[in-house]
Each structure stands twice: as C-alpha cells, then as structure tokens.
C-alpha cells in the first residue's frame, strides 16, 4: 500500500532507534506524551516501545474522543434510541462503551435500533431510505471528524431531508492539551502532536505550547516510522535546547490547516460554554453543538435528553490514565475487574484507549535497545 508500507520499513527503524538513543543525556529521564489515541494504537500495535531506550517513557494522552465521553452522554444516546421510530447510528468504536445500564449492544438486546455506520453519510442514506423513521447520528470525534458531520448536515439541508439529526459530542483538542499542561501531577518534556486533527486546524494552534510552556511539539503521522521520526525530532529539540512546533507529517498536514473544513464547522456548529470530559472534569469552550440556524438538525432539541450527570464508578481511574498520571497497569482494577470483556471505563473499551492497547497488545516483557552507544554520532 502506497504511502503506508514505506513508512513501516524495519531497517530504517533501527537506524532511527540508534539515533534516538544517542540523543539521550546519560542519567536523564524523558517523558513524551502522545496526545492522539491513534498514536497510542500504533505504538502498541507495532511494538514501538521495543525501539526506545529505557530512559524515554511514552505517556498516553487524552486524545481518544471515545474515551472522554462521560457515561451520562452514553445514557442520553440510549435514551434517544429508545424513542419511538428512532434509528440511532454510531461509529463502531462506540458500540461497547458502557453507560450506567450497559452499552449500545446491550440496548439493542433490549429493543433499540442502534446501527453501526462507517460515515455520517451512511447515516444520511439510512434517513433517506427510511422516511417513516427518525434517524439520529451520534457524532463523536475531535476536529478531525467534525467537518464530516458538518458537511453531512449541509448536504441534508441542501437535499431537504427532514428526518435526520445529530447528537453532537464533538470535542476540541486544544483545551484537553491545556488541561494536561496545567495539571500539577504531570511533568512532560514534549508532545507527539495530533496528526489528523492538524489537517483541519493546522499547526499554529500548538504554538502556545512551545512559546508559553516551553515544550517542543512535533505533529506526527501514524505509521511506525512517522512516530519514531517524530520522537527523534523531539529529542533533537530537547538536546539543542529548542522548543518549537515542527511538522513531521507534512505530506498530509498543511501548516494552515483546511479552511474549507473550518468554514463548514463554523457554519453549522459553535462552542458550548462548557462540557464534561470523562476524567478531566468540566472544561470551558471545549466541545461543539449545532448552531441555532441548524436547530432542526440538533437531536438534543428535537428530542428530550435527560442530561443526567453520571459519576464514574468509584473503582474507575480512567481520568488519571487519560491525563497520563497513571499507566494502565497502575489502575487498581486493570485486568481484573476491568477487562475488555467487562470494561468499567472507556479506556478499556475504545480500540485506541491506553488500557485496551496495553491489555490487548502490550502485556509483555519489554526488550529495549541499550542506552546511548558510547560514541558521539554526528548529527545530519
């Protein structure tokens, strides 16, 4: 597969790995956070930690839009799906996320119709094919996916479709990163920056991280070599005492983002004053809802939504895992009471949740490359 296979070449990985190890100052520990759940997934799926020296720890961040959905919103979605003549549609990632009374699969067992779709356009198709039904699309995702929801709503309006609406749970990435930066529990050295979010918002929004917090950021692609190269670029910045925003994923990410996408979001959606994030609490201006002009596509207005705030189960430590304060195996219920079969929290359910990734892929002894080879390698 073009643009994929070339970035999975193991030989180049070994070279990068040695370079990264050589950039580590003896005796110093490094903590780098990968924000995106997709990066967490790649790191575990390809065993990338095997290529890093022991002194570099990867901390998994909150960039998993499924993981940050509070249980109350899952309950709301199921409540919506239980209304007469409603077909709820949702991405596959959400189907097993537990609410207070089970997940979407369990709700279907009790009689709802919650269908899995690959694209919001599929949801619109279902609405067109079922004029007697009210089709709701559960919109989740960061700025990567919001444009697709926006375009679908615009298309629905243009085509005069009246039985389609959106239950909007889009969240924005910058407030989450800021919450991490301001968290007293965490001391990070740099960020592996979100890849596909950046195709929409560009690289400028991360500049405050470098300028005001002094941490380097490298916007990274999703293939293993992309991530290793980004780690290399971060380590180089740290070694050279720089803190800048760099774009490793330049083949896909334009520095200024995608103005058409931003316009579509701006046309149909606006920021909520605040929104609850699982584990991070209420964050202001961190999530999107439909604008008044598109109220006829807003499921929260068309249907009554209980909106009850449901506290996480006491045993659940997803919040700390999402902030990178706890490693998955440090959670008290990890692997025993909380497993992929019997998940307590979202980190274990979402395919890119840190706990799921570690449980499904990473539960192994680690083989690491040795510390910096004791020879000065000249830089390129």
């Amino acid at each position, binding site marked *: 597969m*073009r643009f994929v296979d070339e970035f999975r070449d193991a030989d*180049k990985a070994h070279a*990068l790995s040695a370079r990264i190890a050589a950039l580590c100052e003896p005796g110093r520990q490094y903590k780098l956070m990968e924000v995106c759940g997709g990066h967490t997934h790649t790191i575990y799926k390809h065993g990338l930690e095997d290529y890093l020296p022991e002194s570099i720890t990867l901390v998994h961040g909150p960039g998993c839009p499924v993981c940050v959905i509070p249980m109350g919103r899952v309950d709301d979605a199921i409540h919506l799906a239980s209304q007469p003549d409603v077909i709820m549609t949702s991405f596959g990632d959400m189907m097993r996320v537990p609410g207070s009374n089970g997940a979407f699969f369990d709700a279907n067992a009790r009689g709802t119709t919650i269908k899995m779709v690959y694209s919001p356009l599929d949801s619109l198709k279902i609405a067109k094919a079922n004029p007697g039904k009210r089709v709701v699309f559960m919109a989740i995702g960061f700025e990567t996916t919001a444009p697709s929801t926006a*375009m679908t709503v615009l298309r629905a309006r243009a085509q005069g479709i009246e039985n389609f609406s959106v239950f909007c749970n889009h969240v924005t990435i910058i407030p989450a990163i800021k919450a991490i930066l301001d968290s007293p529990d965490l001391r990070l050295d740099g960020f592996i920056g979100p890849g596909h979010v950046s195709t929409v918002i560009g690289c400028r929004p991360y500049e405050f991280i470098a300028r005001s917090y002094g941490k380097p950021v490298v916007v990274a692609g999703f293939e293993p070599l992309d991530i290793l190269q980004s780690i*290399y670029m971060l380590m180089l910045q740290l070694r050279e005492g720089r803190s800048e925003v760099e774009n490793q994923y*330049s*083949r896909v990410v334009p520095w200024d983002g995608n103005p058409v996408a931003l316009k579509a979001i701006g046309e149909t959606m606006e920021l909520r004053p605040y929104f609850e994030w699982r584990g991070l609490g209420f964050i202001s201006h961190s999530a999107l809802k439909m604008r008044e002009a598109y109220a006829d596509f807003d499921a929260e207005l068309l249907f009554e939504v209980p909106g009850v705030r449901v506290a996480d189960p006491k045993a659940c430590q997803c919040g700390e895992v999402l902030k990178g304060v706890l490693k998955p195996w440090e959670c008290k219920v990890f692997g025993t009471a909380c497993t992929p079969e019997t998940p307590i929290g979202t980190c274990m359910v979402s395919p890119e949740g840190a706990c799921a990734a570690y449980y499904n892929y990473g539960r192994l002894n680690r083989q690491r490359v040795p510390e910096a080879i004791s020879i000065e390698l000249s830089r390129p």
Partner: protein
Amino acid sequence: MCLGIPGEVIEFLPEQPDLARVNVSGVRRVINVGLLSDEPPEPGEWVLIHVGFALSKIDEAEAAAALEFLEGIGQAYEDELAALRDSQIE
C-alpha cells in the same frame, strides 16, 4: 480521530462534483471530496480518507522528502558503522 487512509483518486462521479471514486489497494470506494473544494484533486492524485471524506491531499513531494530523510538516516547510520568497523582495524 485518527484513522485516515491514503487513497488514489480514480474519477469523479458524473453530475456529482462532490463525489469521487478512490482506490485503496484495489478496493474502490466513493467518497466525498467537498472538503477539498478550494483545490479539488485530479484523478491520479492521492488523498487522505477519513469516515468517507477526503480531508487533505497527499503532497507527493513532501512524502518523497520524508522518505529521503529516512533513507538518509539509514544510510548515514550504515556509513558510520562502517567507519567504526574500519577504524577498529587500526
């Protein structure tokens, strides 16, 4: 928010300027290219696909540059190791 796959644009659908057929490793899908309306892709160009939409064009020059850097790192590494081994002979 992350699953984006590169695909090659094959053709636009007649009468639907927003829709294009793409090829991913022999698999063909119709996707919406409306987000690239500022600079619509041409057949033969590659785009990044996410939930049925093209989010961005893949810049072949940048991809080539990225690969060149990776080759370079690999080569420089091999060169230095060779130099290392040679200097041992002394």
